[in-house]
């Protein structure tokens, strides 16, 4: 079990009275990429929020390298080694591009593989725009900033929530082109995608969610389009 980085057991999550996750189980192994797919409102982002500590979860439900982290707050989870590219990018409008990237290393620099220079190397276009406000960039460039920002803490686990949302196919291709290097740096990755084709391309393993539950999982090659469709909508087309 030593190569298990992140393990989730029977995770539940609530927004007030409203239960959004019903007992999710999931295991991520070192150096792997895992994709989570599902329809709108399936609970994918909620799962990400629970992992990163934005939403409270039971202490033992989430373990990172055998350490229970369910009860930790968001900053503590980051320091433990999980960072996230949040849904909708969420750059800080008052910060420049460079500051947005630098703030990723505010309280953790991990093994130091990713530095400002390394990020500029990965996404050269950002270097030209580094003094612009983060929000003045195109959607794709903003997404690069968000990824760079998350990498700056050199996490063990990188969570990406719908990073292709609203981006043109060519840009999506550019962004996903960075993934091999990210995995090379030692980070394991979880990507959340609605774009099934994209998800199947990058991941070693796919989980499908519906209404707060995992309804299907397996290696991309083993999953038929129909099975995915069923898991997605709960009905056969």
């Amino acid at each position, binding site marked *: 079990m030593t190569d298990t980085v992140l393990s989730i057991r029977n995770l539940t999550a609530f927004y*007030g*009275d*409203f239960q959004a996750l019903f007992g999710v189980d999931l295991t991520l192994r070192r150096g792997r990429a895992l994709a989570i797919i599902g*329809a*709108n*409102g*399936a609970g994918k982002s909620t799962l990400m929020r629970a992992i990163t500590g934005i939403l409270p979860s039971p202490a033992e439900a989430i373990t990172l390298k055998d350490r229970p982290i369910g009860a930790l707050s968001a900053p503590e989870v980051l320091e433990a080694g999980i960072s996230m590219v949040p849904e909708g990018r969420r750059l800080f409008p008052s910060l420049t591009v460079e500051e947005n990237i630098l703030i990723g290393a505010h309280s953790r620099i991990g093994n130091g593989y990713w530095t400002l220079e390394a990020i500029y190397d990965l996404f050269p276009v950002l270097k030209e725009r580094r003094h612009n406000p983060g*929000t*003045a*960039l*195109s*959607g794709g460039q903003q997404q690069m900033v968000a990824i760079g920002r998350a990498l700056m803490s050199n996490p063990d686990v990188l969570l990406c929530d*719908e990073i292709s*949302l*609203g*981006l*043109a196919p060519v840009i999506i291709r550019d962004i996903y082109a960075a993934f091999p290097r990210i995995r090379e740096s030692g980070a394991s990755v979880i990507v959340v995608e*609605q*774009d*099934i*084709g*994209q998800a199947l391309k990058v991941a070693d393993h796919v989980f499908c969610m*519906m*209404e707060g539950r995992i309804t299907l999982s397996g290696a991309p090659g083993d999953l038929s389009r129909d099975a995915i469709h069923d898991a997605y*909508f*709960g*009905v056969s*087309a």
Partner: protein
Amino acid sequence: MSLLTLDRVSKSFGALKVADAVSFEVAPGEALGIIGPNGAGKSTLFNLITGNIAPNAGRILFDGADVTRKPPMSRVAAGIGRSFQIPQPFSHLSVFENLLVAANFGGGHHGPHAAALCMDILERTGLGGVADATSGGLSLLQRKRLELARAMATSPKLILLDEIAGGLTEAECGALIETITSIHAEGTAIIWIEHVLHALTSVVERLMVLNFGKMLMIGEPDAVMASPEVKEIYLGIDV
């Protein structure tokens, strides 16, 4: 004469163009479906029509009047009802009260008549059993039904539905289609954004495809669905 007319309506958020000179018309009593990839600007289009956000350019006409600069309240009064993609119930009010607000203010109904109307809608949308429950505690499915019911309670001439069929079982989906069909049959015009295509195509008469804020095409559902372009950009299937 058309009920709703959009005339080269544009909207950007900073550098991001989410509506790019969109023009189309909806006839009274017509049902129009909208599809498009995530982030294409579908919900934004609804916000423009309802007045929750103001366009940067273009005109919106409803029922013969220019409503481009009108606030949402007066558009509701004129007959535009909507549901939100992410349900936004008045969470401290009961389900019944949620509808009552809409009937009182948006529909202009009062007294026992308003209450009776709300009860009727609750029955039709399958929420009769939870009428007195606090809406904050509803399940996702019930919240989506509440969105539909609340929009109906404003007695709209045009009702805007944003992804209300996502995540339903086959039976639930069938019931929903039945409700929407009945609304349609009463002469209410419908614009429906939906990813569950079979549900959508069983109701709408025309289908519109949106991509990067631009209207890609509009027409017969079957014809639209058959287009290879749609297959590629929307379904993500290489053809």
